[in-house]
């Protein structure tokens, strides 16, 4: 593995990443590895390691995580946060890393599948509505059969306001701008120099 030069690192990376001030205690990290020990993804993907990602952020390095496949693998099970002896909320860090990646057009392929789904949710005021007519019929049948309204009651007012909030906060625009064609390629960047295959 080639030697990495520290002068190429960004001292302010942590502040940039934690734009929403959700993970203010990152420097408390002891690199103890309890997070990686419990992480279900780490036990499946050889190159995914939450502890190493924290280390990269603290030392100002973007060379790996920004264009990595790895940051898109976190399940948000929060096993790491549950066990962390200094209460670092790693999933919230992950969420913010993903926004930065998307801003530089990395990882769009993992958001494109949700684009139509999200735009539909914006109309319904509900998420998870079946996409097909058959699906809708089926669930309405089941609901009616057990004494519920065929479709969950969400008022017209609620749906209007939900839609308006999406528009006002720029979320609709954010979704519209996500285009598959612009997606930059990702790599398993943390695999370099690592032992793989046990």
């Amino acid at each position, binding site marked *: 593995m080639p030697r990495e030069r520290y002068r190429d690192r960004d001292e302010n990376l942590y502040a940039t990443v934690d734009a929403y001030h959700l993970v203010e205690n990152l420097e408390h990290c002891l690199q103890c590895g309890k997070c990686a020990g419990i992480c279900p993804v780490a036990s499946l993907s050889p190159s995914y390691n939450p502890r190493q990602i924290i280390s990269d952020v603290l030392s100002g390095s973007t060379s790996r995580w920004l264009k990595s496949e790895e940051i898109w693998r976190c399940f948000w099970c929060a096993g790491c946060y549950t066990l962390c002896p200094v209460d670092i909320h790693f999933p919230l860090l992950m969420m913010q890393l993903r926004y930065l990646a998307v801003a530089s057009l990395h990882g769009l392929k993992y958001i494109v599948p949700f684009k139509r789904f999200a735009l539909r949710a914006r109309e319904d005021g509900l998420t998870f509505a079946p996409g097909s007519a058959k699906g809708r019929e089926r669930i309405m049948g*089941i*609901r009616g059969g057990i004494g519920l309204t065929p479709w969950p009651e*969400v008022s017209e007012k609620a749906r209007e*306001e939900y839609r308006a909030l999406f528009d006002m906060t720029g979320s609709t625009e954010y979704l519209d701008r996500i285009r598959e064609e612009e997606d930059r390629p990702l790599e398993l960047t943390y695999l370099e120099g690592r032992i793989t295959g046990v």
Partner: protein
Amino acid sequence: MSRQRVVNPEEKFPTVPGTVFLFRSCTGSLEYPGTENAVKETLASLGIQALMDPDQTCCSGYLLTCSAHKPEVSLAITARNLSLVEKKDLDTYTFCNGCYGYLSELSHIMMHNPAYLQMANDLIARWGYRYEGKTRIYHVQEMWYRLRETIGEKVVRPLSGLKVGVHYGCHYLAKQYGILDDGGYPTFHEEIVEILGATPVFYKERQLCCGYAVGRGFTHREETVQPHLFKKLTSARDAGVELITTVCPGCNVALDREQPHLGKRYGADLKIPVIDLSQLIALAMGVPPQKLGFEANTIPLDVVLKKLGL
């Protein structure tokens, strides 16, 4: 050790409320509507009235964590939904770990960052809403544990001999502070299972995540989520689990609907039905299975229902 982590249920609920706001779960309503019925039936038998509101929208948390939108909209949506509850002067009860986790986290962010609270309130003010942070957010599993003795008294159909593997899910225990357990070795679901007359099974991967949150069930289904679920479900099967309970319709989708695909991919025999803990409680309390919507389940409940003589 700064803040208090574990709270015992009597501290959490010094008195039992007469009316609660039941927060509609999208996954619940559109995947397992029987869960909503079960929750309402159980609350009713415990003397608690559940109010729902058509003006309530989705909590928006799932798509937020899928990075499909930015926090600003979810903060505003949370503030709007919770202000509805506050207008009724009630506390918010969810029956989905997802709704619970997102409402708790987003309201926490607003309570600790005045700028975000201001932004959210500015957006929703045009419709006359205002969020103050007064309504407390609970998950019905907490109330089931609080009133477990009452539930025990109302069991008319003890689920004797049924081997139940519990699935806590992640987003309730992930709150870490001010909840019933710190997640190291939770047992409060197993205690309820025992009170219902069934036998809890502590299978090896009991505390493993369902893998479906934040959309990974779609984006990484074959790569990580299926091998992951395979580990969990085979661990349950090998320990003799006959039924898995969840407290999150999202987890229910993962554990239930993925089994046939795992069966095909790994050639494994996996047929463990997965239902909500509230549905199990409702069954034990005598609610007829027809009202509990098991038709929505992918893995059928017949073997279990037959075993229980239903």
